[in-house]
Structures are given as structure tokens and as C-alpha cells.
């Protein structure tokens, strides 16, 4: 037997690797960039009904391979019918970040298409053709920007060539706009040119001329989502909406404590219940990211499955299961946090202890935040069907590309025996980067003759998450006589699955701000072992540490008697690019504009305060200013949040602003009252009454401004969230003098 490796440890190792790759751009994206477009290039013309131009990039993996002998993977992004309908394929998962609108807009811009001529379809899952097909790390736009622009530009180039041939004029005398090629006042529509363009050679996508930003007609304006009409009329878009002939519904019961195995269950009794087709034990592979042991119930209807689940009795073997206790972990962390440093050194710059001794003023504080759940409103679900030698999925996944291999591995089949249909996703937030529900559905489908839709209940969704890890920070900082920050020491008590490195999403990098901006800086870890799965949650790491960083910086600015804005700007210093991507000039710009828009320094009503915070994450520079009021009963009201971001040029203004508005609500909701706790390995919160997301009456007014710098565009699903919590707690301090050091706010007696 091989060395015994705890599957839970393996799963966390994979999660950390997943997080790294998502943030760096997925392997699929790297592979796409590495693959050279076939030098001669060609358009693959297919005899689709109605004819027309189908643009498909051919990617030839073997340099020098002959066209006849090589295997080509066509990369179809768009199609133009002779009637002028422009069909654009969206390759990425739509998880609410608006990519199904943004990606086609980028193609349409370079194509010079009229947006109303465009219809958008979801592309098949095939990363060999499309490159990256994941949604995570706010990487969709930066990873695909060039690829999509070139897809549109190649088509435009060919349509111009076709028009030039028709008019017998040089191509460079022609222009394009509104889905047509123009020669002075004469025009030829793209539909009319489609057949002719289809017969032309395809130019090298790498050399085709792209538009200048000043020539953009579509990008930067506001567009409503391409699926919005279907959303508001209740069309079957989501994973959970999939219906296949003969489809049955499955419920899968896992051990409430992670790592428990099934000894036995009352299967005969369950199988005899009305509407139940089958019930069986799935051994699983013990990986939280794939298939944990459990009992499957397959029934005619969801209600029959849910009723049967109520009667299911499973004898769990919990000998190797989680016994995590949040109350114990809190005590152990507090004990560990009494020491100025942990045994794992992450960063040690200068001489922090000496600098603190010599500081004019020092501040010490202990910050804690809890585990939280992703809680997407669409519970985990997946439809799977084992048929004709393949397993086919209809899956609301964030990582359709990776899911091919994950599912194949978990089910013991070849990757080419897995087919995935991408559905709309009812909320990602990082939860669906993992494809555990999909592997489970596949495993059940392999045991059942016919299509099966696996549905998780809300209770299961909260119990079996990859939680945002809680954390504990024992901090001391010092300023000199001029009020300048000279020393920062953080003993970060965090969690580990393998005993060696922090769990997924529970680490803090050495170059995280202000690590490179303080002359004496120390970051150490104490690692507390746990078994509860953790993972990436919207703006992983930043979603928790930004609050600690920006809250403690505010404390230090107050101790120094300095204005917070000035203190932050001084810390940024001269405009320069720091390792890790933070540009201090872009940071200073968003801080200044946020303060200006919010009226920093203005006179406020009694009980009101403004709070500022900045954070750089996912290539986005964001500063936010909260206006909060606090009454004598510690009831708070978030009146207004000003968000200023620099993510380069904006693709869809409405979509980008929506992400920021939602990020503020998510950040406020989470820091206000959300907390996941566990005892005896069991998650204690079961449904929304114990996990109270923010409701309509308490949403703030959110104002979003973008500094559209000349830097390449980057993503916006995540980076607006991290500054929310510190802006609010800094505003609470300004309003009432209470320094919040424990989240959620309800722990310190606040309510809305």
C-alpha cells in the first residue's frame, strides 16, 4: 500500500493549486497562448444551413504538420449569415459577472458590428479550441482580451477584403461600421459579403491590425445583459432548470462531519417509499473536491426524493471525520496570539522589534473574523447521464475546462468520454470553482439507467462548502515622531490541512500591501490544524485580510494624529509598480478621487462618519469611502458608499458598475452578520435564518466611478469587495469612536 495520504489533505493541496492557477490564468489559457495559429491560417468553411461565413481559427499544434495529415481544432467564435445575423459564441461560464455580454462585445467591437445585429450563444466546452473556459480570479477579461479582439479583427479584415474585391478598390480605402463595409457613401452589409468572405484566405490573427481605443464605438457604454429577457420571463437557463426525457431526481446524503464514511443505511426501507427508484451507497474517493462517501436516493420527483431523505437513517463511521470546534479554535488562537510571532516566518524585512522599541507611538490590536459560506442562491446541482459510452453533464460550473479532467478522474473514465454542457450559473462567488457536485452526479448517473438531476438542499449547501477561512491577527505597528509608519508586525494565526502550509485561501503573501512599503515589516504564522474544507471565496484572502490591513492602518493614522487619506498617500509614496502588481500611482489616484467624490473632510451630521479604505487585488486598484451613522443603541446605517476603481478601459459600463454595487452589498452583508461555526465537525448554520444575508431595506446607496486608465483592462467581479469592510469599520470609528476588531459586527453589538 502506498503511504497513507488523507484525501482531505490532498483535496486542500489541489484547492491551493487551483487557486494559484485561477489567479495566474488557467493552464488552458496558457496552452492557448502557447499554440501558434496555423501560419497559413485558414477559415474552415462548413455547409451550415443557409450558408455564410463561419470563422474558425485553426490551431496547429505540430509546427510543420501538413494540413491534410494534421488534426485541426477549429476555434469558432462567430458566424455571419447571408441575412446579416451575427452569431457570437461566448466561451466562458456566465456566473452573474456578465461575461456572456462582455466577451461578445469585445468581438463585436473589433468586427465593427452593430450590437442589435448580434445574437449570443453559449459555446461548447472544449478548451483545446477556446482556451480558458473558467470564471475565477477576475481573469476572464485580461486572459481573453487579445484572443477575442483578434477573433473579431480577423473577420473584419476578411469582410473588407471581400468588399474591396467586389468594388475593385484597394482595401485600405474602405472603412467599417454598423455591420457594413463603407466606400464613401456606398456600403455593403456583412450579410451580403458573408459568402464572398468565406472563400478568402484567413490572415494571421497575430498580425491583423486591431482598433485604437479612440476608435471604439461599442466598448465603454452600458448594455443590458444578453440573457436578461430570458431571466425576467423565467426561461430555463440555469443548471437546476435542465429537463431531459425520463430524467429522475437525486438527493445525496453526506456525513455531516467531513470525512465520515458510510457503515450502512436503511436502504430497503428507502427503496420501498413512494416515487423512489433506487437508493445506494456511494463509497466515493474521500476527496472533498470530488466524491465524499454518502447515500444516493433517486426518485421520480424532487419532493419524493426530499421526503425519502427525511426517512433516511445512515450509520456513519466518524473515526476519521472532522471534530473541528470553532469555540476551541478561537481559544487556541487567542492563546497563540499572545506571542508576538508565530513559528512560520512569511516575511521579515528590516528589524521590526527594534523599530517598534524606537517608535514615537505604537498600537497593538487583535483582529478576528469568522468562516463564511458562499451560499449562492442556486444550490449546487448537476444533471448527468451515462449514455453511449460517455457521461454527459449539464452543469452550472465556474470551471468548465477543468471539470472535464476532474470528472473523468473521479469517475475513472477517459477525458474524451466526458461531455459538458455549460448552463447559466445561479451565483458563483468561488463555490463552483470546485466540481464536487458534478462528480457526485456523475457517480450516481453511472449507477442509474437514464438521466439524473442531483439537487442539493440549502442545508446541504451550507454544510458542505469550501468555506472562506476565518483568521486571527495579533498586530503591533509603530509610527515615528513625524507620524510616518515605520514598523508593522503581524502574527497571523491561521489554519492548515497538512500541518505545513496554510489552508486554501487562508494565507497572506509576503508581498501583500503594506509588506513592500514599510521599512520594518514582519509577518509570521501559527497554523491550527482543521479538517473543515476551506477554499476560494470572492476575492480570496483579500476578502478577509484587506479589513485587517486597512483597519489597522487607520488605527495607526489616528495614533499618529494624521489624516487617514494623507497617511495612506504617504505610504504609497512615489508612483511605481511593486512586486505583485500594485501600482502606487494608480492607488494614489483612486484614493484621491474617492475622497473627492465622497466629500472627505466635509462637515457631517452628529453620529455620522466617513471611512476610507484602499485595496489592490485581482489587478484592480479600488478605494472606497463609506458614510455611516451609528445611534446610541449601536444601530448602524450605511448611507452611501463611493467606489472608485481603476481596472483600465471598461467593456460594459452597466455590467462593471453592477459588479461594484453587488460587491458593496456582499461585503456589507458578510461583515455585518454572517458567520459559519462548527462544533464536533458539524456546521451549525443550516439555512438563511441562521445565515442572514442582507435584505432590501438595508442596502446602501452605491456610487461607482472608474478611472479608465490606459492600462490593459482587467476584471471587476472581485476587487471592489475587499475595501468595503474596512471602509465601514473606519467610518464606524469616525462616527462613534468604537474600533471594531471582531467580525461580524453583530459580535460587537451592532445591528441595522
Amino acid at each position, binding site marked *: 500500500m502506498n503511504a497513507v495520504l488523507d484525501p482531505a489533505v490532498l483535496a486542500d493541496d489541489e484547492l491551493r493549486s487551483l487557486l494559484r492557477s485561477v489567479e495566474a490564468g488557467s493552464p488552458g489559457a496558457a496552452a492557448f497562448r502557447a499554440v501558434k495559429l496555423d501560419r497559413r491560417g485558414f477559415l474552415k468553411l462548413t455547409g451550415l444551413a443557409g450558408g455564410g461565413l463561419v470563422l474558425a481559427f485553426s490551431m496547429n499544434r505540430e509546427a510543420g504538420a501538413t494540413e491534410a495529415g494534421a488534426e485541426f481544432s477549429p476555434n469558432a467564435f462567430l458566424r455571419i449569415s447571408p441575412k446579416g445575423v451575427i452569431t457570437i459564441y461566448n466561451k466562458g461560464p456566465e456566473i452573474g459577472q456578465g461575461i456572456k455580454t462582455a466577451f461578445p462585445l469585445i468581438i463585436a467591437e473589433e468586427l465593427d458590428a452593430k450590437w442589435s445585429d448580434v445574437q449570443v450563444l453559449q459555446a461548447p466546452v472544449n478548451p483545446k479550441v477556446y482556451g480558458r473556459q473558467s470564471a475565477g480570479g477576475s481573469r476572464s477579461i485580461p486572459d481573453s482580451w487579445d484572443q477575442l479582439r483578434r477573433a473579431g479583427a480577423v473577420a473584419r479584415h476578411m469582410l473588407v477584403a471581400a468588399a474591396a474585391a467586389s468594388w475593385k478598390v484597394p482595401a485600405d480605402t474602405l472603412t467599417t461600421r454598423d455591420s457594413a463595409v463603407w466606400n464613401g457613401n456606398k456600403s455593403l452589409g456583412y450579410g451580403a459579403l458573408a459568402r464572398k468572405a468565406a472563400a478568402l484566405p484567413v490572415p494571421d490573427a497575430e498580425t491583423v491590425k486591431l482598433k485604437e481605443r479612440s476608435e471604439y464605438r461599442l466598448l465603454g457604454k452600458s448594455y443590458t445583459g444578453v440573457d436578461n429577457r430570458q431571466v425576467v420571463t423565467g426561461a430555463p437557463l440555469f443548471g437546476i432548470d435542465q429537463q431531459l426525457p425520463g430524467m429522475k431526481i437525486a438527493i445525496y446524503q453526506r456525513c455531516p462531519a467531513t470525512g465520515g464514511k458510510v457503515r450502512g443505511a436503511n436502504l430497503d426501507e428507502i427503496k420501498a417509499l413512494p416515487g423512489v427508484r433506487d437508493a445506494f451507497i456511494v463509497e466515493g474517493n474521500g476527496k472533498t473536491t470530488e466524491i465524499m462517501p454518502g447515500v444516493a436516493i433517486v426518485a421520480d420527483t424532487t419532493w419524493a426524493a426530499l421526503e425519502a431523505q427525511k426517512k433516511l437513517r445512515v450509520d456513519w463511521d466518524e473515526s476519521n471525520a472532522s471534530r473541528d470546534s470553532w469555540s476551541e479554535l478561537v481559544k487556541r488562537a487567542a492563546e497563540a496570539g499572545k506571542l508576538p510571532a508565530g513559528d512560520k516566518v512569511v516575511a521579515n524585512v528590516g528589524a521590526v522589534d527594534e523599530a517598534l522599541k524606537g517608535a514615537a507611538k505604537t498600537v497593538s490590536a487583535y483582529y478576528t473574523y469568522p468562516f463564511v459560506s458562499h451560499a449562492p442562491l442556486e444550490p449546487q446541482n448537476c444533471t448527468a447521464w451515462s449514455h453511449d459510452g460517455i457521461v454527459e453533464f449539464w452543469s452550472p460550473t465556474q470551471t468548465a475546462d477543468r471539470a472535464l479532467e476532474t470528472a473523468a478522474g473521479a469517475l475513472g473514465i477517459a477525458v474524451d468520454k466526458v461531455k459538458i454542457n455549460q448552463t447559466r450559473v445561479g451565483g458563483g462567488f468561488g463555490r463552483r470553482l470546485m466540481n464536487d457536485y458534478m462528480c457526485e452526479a456523475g457517480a450516481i448517473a453511472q449507477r442509474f439507467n437514464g438521466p439524473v438531476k442531483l439537487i442539493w438542499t*440549502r442545508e446541504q449547501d451550507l454544510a458542505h462548502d469550501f468555506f472562506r477561512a476565518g483568521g486571527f491577527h495579533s498586530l503591533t505597528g509603530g509610527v515615528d515622531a513625524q507620524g510616518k509608519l515605520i514598523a508593522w508586525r503581524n502574527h497571523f494565526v491561521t489554519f492548515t490541512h497538512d500541518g505545513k502550509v496554510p489552508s486554501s485561501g487562508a494565507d497572506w503573501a509576503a508581498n501583500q500591501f503594506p509588506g513592500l512599503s514599510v521599512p520594518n515589516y514582519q509577518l509570521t504564522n501559527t497554523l491550527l490544524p482543521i479538517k473543515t474544507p476551506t477554499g476560494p471565496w470572492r476575492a480570496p484572502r483579500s476578502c478577509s485580510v484587506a479589513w485587517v490591513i486597512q483597519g489597522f492602518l487607520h488605527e495607526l493614522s489616528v495614533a499618529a494624529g494624521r489624516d487617514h487619506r494623507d497617511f495612506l498617500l504617504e505610504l504609497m509614496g512615489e508612483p511605481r509598480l511593486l512586486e505583485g502588481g500594485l501600482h502606487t500611482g494608480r492607488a494614489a489616484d483612486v484614493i484621491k478621487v474617492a475622497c473627492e467624490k465622497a466629500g472627505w473632510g466635509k462637515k457631517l451630521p452628529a453620529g455620522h462618519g466617513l471611512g476610507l479604505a484602499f485595496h489592490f487585488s485581482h489587478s484592480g486598484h479600488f478605494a472606497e469611502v463609506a458614510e455611516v451613522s451609528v445611534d446610541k443603541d449601536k444601530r448602524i446605517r450605511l448611507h452611501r458608499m463611493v467606489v472608485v476603481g481603476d481596472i483600465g478601459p471598461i467593456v460594459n459600463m452597466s455590467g462593471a458598475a453592477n459588479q461594484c454595487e453587488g460587491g458593496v452589498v456582499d461585503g456589507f452583508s458578510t461583515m455585518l452578520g454572517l458567520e459559519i461555526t462548527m462544533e464536533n465537525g458539524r456546521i451549525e448554520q443550516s439555512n438563511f435564518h441562521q445565515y442572514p444575508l442582507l435584505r432590501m431595506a438595508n442596502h446602501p446607496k452605491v456610487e461607482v466611478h472608474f478611472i479608465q486608465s490606459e492600462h490593459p483592462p482587467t476584471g471587476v467581479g472581485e476587487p471592489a469587495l475587499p475595501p468595503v469592510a474596512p471602509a465601514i469599520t473606519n467610518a464606524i470609528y469616525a462616527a462613534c469612536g468604537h474600533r471594531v476588531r471582531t467580525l461580524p459586527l453583530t459580535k460587537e453589538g451592532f445591528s441595522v
Partner: protein
Amino acid sequence: MASINLHVNGKQLNADVDPATPLLWVLRDSLGLVGTKFGCGMALCGACTVLADGNPIRACSTPVGGLAGQKITTIEGLAPSAKELHPLQQAWIEHDVPQCGYCQAGQIMSAAALLAKTPKPTDADIDAAMAGNLCRCGTYQRIRAAIHTAAGKLAGSKA
């Protein structure tokens, strides 16, 4: 099991189900109307909101057996015709309200019940009427704006 007669979106439909079955699963599994969503199963999130005789109810927690004789309207039946959307649906599109979109059918149904009784709602009216509907993506600001826009259109069309 029993044969249950339901009046859904202007049609008489029949479902052969246990009367204790929540309306949600009859709509989704038996009638194929999947616009009404499952979010919590405990009437906590509002994703399953439909109208029964014009009143918003949570279909996940309403046994179908008690709905005989009531007119059920789901998101699929809200628009006056296949070509014409309800002013709320139109406003939702204009304001680009949805992010993931999963909660929006329930939000729109709650808003429809509100506007039917309170054609010119105040912000406080909206807070009260929409309190049962969670939006995990946080689109509340746009939902509020869209309700005001739709209310304005309804008022305009009646003037």
C-alpha cells in the same frame, strides 16, 4: 397521490401528486414551469415567489392541496402576451438589474403584487414588500430603481 386541479397562468392544469407536495415542485417537476426557483425550502429567500389570487406566496412552503380554486400566476405568466412584457420585466431589462439572475423571478413577482395594490410605492413600501426576497448578488439598488420606473410607466399608461 391525488389528481389536483390547478389554475396556472390562465390555464386549467392537472397534476397527479400528493396534496402535501409544495407548489414549487408541482410547477417545476410536473408542469415544467422552472422559472419559479428553489432557494431554501423554508420560505426564507423568496426565490419561489408566485401569486395566488394576486397575493405573493412562497411556493416552496405552500402545499398544493390547499390551492384549489385559486388563480396562480408564475413568472412565465406575468407578461400580458408573448410579445409584450409586463412593465416590471421591461424595467428590469432597462436597468440591467440581473447579475446571476436566479432570484429575479421571485423579486419580480413580489414587485408585481406590490404594484397591483400600491401603484406609486414609496421606498418604505418597497422595503416592506420586498423584505422576503434575498438577492445574493446584491442588486437591490437596481431592483428599487426598476420598481419605481415600472410604477411610473403604469401610472403613465393609466393617465
